C-alpha cells in the first residue's frame, strides 16, 4: 500500500536527531514542515482512487 511507504519514510526521516525547535513564532518553513508531517499522516488514510471516490459522492439536495 502506498500509505505504508510513507510510514517508513517518515521513520527514516525521524532517525537523525533534530536540532532544538525554534522558540519563537514558527517561520514559514517550519509551518511547511508541520503541514508536511500532517500530510504524511493523512496519506495513509486518503482514498486510493480519488477520482472514483469523488464521482461516487452523490447526494440528494436537502434543506
Amino acid at each position, binding site marked *: 500500500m502506498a500509505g505504508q511507504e510513507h510510514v517508513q519514510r517518515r521513520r527514516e526521516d525521524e532517525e537523525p536527531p533534530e536540532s532544538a525547535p525554534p522558540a519563537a513564532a514558527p517561520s514559514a518553513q517550519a*509551518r*511547511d514542515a*508541520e*503541514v*508536511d*508531517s*500532517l*500530510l504524511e*499522516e*493523512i496519506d495513509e*488514510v*486518503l*482514498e486510493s482512487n*480519488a*477520482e472514483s*471516490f*469523488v*464521482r*461516487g*459522492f*452523490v*447526494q*440528494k*439536495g*436537502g*434543506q
Partner: protein
Amino acid sequence: MGIETEFGIVEPGRPQANPMLLSSTVVSAYAALVAGPGRARWDYEDEDPLADARGFRLQRAAAHPSLLTDDPTRPAPSGDDPVGTVDDAAGRDEVPPQLGATHRERPAVEEYDDPGAATTILSNGARFYVDHAHPEYSSPEVTGPRAGVVWDKAGEEVALRAVRALASTPGLPDVVLYKNNVDGKGASYGTHENYLVDRAVRFDVLAAALIPFLVTRQVFTGAGRVGLGQAGQAAGFQISQRADYIEAEVGLETTLRRPIVNTRDEPHADRTRWRRLHLIIGDATLLEVSTWLRLGTTSAVLWLVEQARTRPDLLAAVGALALADPVAEVREVSRDLSLTHRLTLEDGRRLTALEVQRAYLDAVRAAMSAEVGTEPDDETAAVLARWDSVLSRLAEDPVLCAREVEWVAKLRLLEGMRRRDHLAWDNPRLAAMDIQWSDVRPERGLYHRLLAADAVERLVDPAEVAAAVAEPPADTRAYFRGTVVRRYGAQVRAASWDSVVLDVPGLPTLQRIPLRDPWRGTRAHVGALLEECADAGELVARLTPSSS
C-alpha cells in the same frame, strides 16, 4: 439555541443506492442500538401512532391538535379515533417539524415517507431522524455556545455509532456519513442554527441587523470548500460550503432560493413570547472553536438586537452597515481568501468583511458598557475576546488561525498537498480530501487526523461529549424530554420540541405534556419529580392535579 445537522450519506461502491432508505437504515440502526432491553425499537416507527399520523399526514395532520391537546387534564382522543374533535390548531406547532412542509419535487417521497421515515428521540433530548435524503441530528436546546459545541459533537458521535452499528451487522449496508454541506455536483444540505429570540423584536429589524453580520461571519465560521459554483463548475477553493447556494436575502424556503435570513416562524414554544430564529446559511463545522464562535458571536448580536428594542441608539452603528447587494457579497466574501475584498455598503462606504465584523464586535461591547450592570458572563466575555483575537489574526495572516478556523485549517492542508505533489485545483485528490475531511470515522476523517495530531484546538473534554450522547442538558426543557425518554422510554408514544406524549397502560387515552416554555423542565425544575416517579403512570398522576 441548538444546531440541526444533515449528514452526507454514502454506501461505498453503490452511488446509486437510495439515500432515503439508507438514511432510514442509519436512524433505525441507532435506535436499535440504544433501545432498552426487551424493547423492539427497530420497528418502533411502525407501531407508533404518531409515525402513522405522519404517514397519513394529509388526512390526520388535523388530528394532531386534538390528540396532543394542551390541557393535560382533558382527555385526548386515542390515535385510532376519527378526526372530529379538532380544537383550534392556529398557533399550534406540528409535532414533526421535519416532515412538515417539505416543498420538494421528488416522486420517491411518497413511497418513502410512509414506513421508512425513521425518527427517534434520544435520551440526550436530541432528535435523530430522516430529513429529505439525509440522516439529521437536531441537538437538544442548550443555553450557551459551549454547550452547543458539546451537544453538536455528541451528534457526530451518534452518527459514528450508527455507522459502526451498520458495519458490524451482517445483511445491512455499510454506510459512511459526512458532516459537510455539499456534494460538489449541485446538491447542498443544511446545517441550521436555531436561536430563541424575544418575540417583541420586530422581524424586519432583526433581519436588517443580521444580514451584514451573516454575510461576513463566514471569515471565521466557514468550513472551506474545493470547487466554485453550485456544481463546482470552476476549480478553486472558497471559504464557505454554503455560499453558492444562498440566493435570496430573506425568505421562507430552505431547499431552493435559500435566503440569508430564513422566515420560518415555527417557534416550538409559546409564540406570544418567542420566535425561533432559524438560520440556514451556516456551514457544518468540525473545529470546535469554529462552531463555538459561530454560536457565540451570533448570539451576542442577537442580544444586541434585543437590547435595542428599548435603546434603539445601540443599533445605530450596525444599522449603518447595510450592504448594497448582500446576496452577491456572500459569494464575493466566500471567494476572497486574502480577506481584502471590500463590500459595498448602502451608504457608499467600502469595508472588508473583517471590518464589518469588527464593527459588530464594537457595537456589542459598546452596548454592554452602556447598559448599567450588564457585565458579560464569563462565557460571553470569552467569546468576545476570541472574536476580537481571531479578527486581528485573520487580518494579519489567516494561517495564524489554522487551529481554530475550519476553512483555514482545510486550506492549509490542501495547499500543503498542492505544493508537495504539484497539484492544480482541479485535481480530484483535492476534491477527495475536501469530502474526506468530514468523514465521521476517526480513522478516516481528515479532521480527526488533525485532531489526533494536535493540529487543531480542543475546546471541550471528549468525556463531556461522550456523556452528552446519552445525557440531556440540565438547564432547558430538553432535560425533561431526554429524561422521560431514558426513564419511561417504552411509554413514550411521541415527543416533539414542545411536548411529550405518554401512553400509560390502564389509561384510556394518551397523555400529552406540553413544554411551551423552553426554560421549564430543567433539572432544577423537574429533576426530583422524575427521580420519584418509577413509571410514566406516576408521572402523569403527579402532573394531573384533578386525578387521584
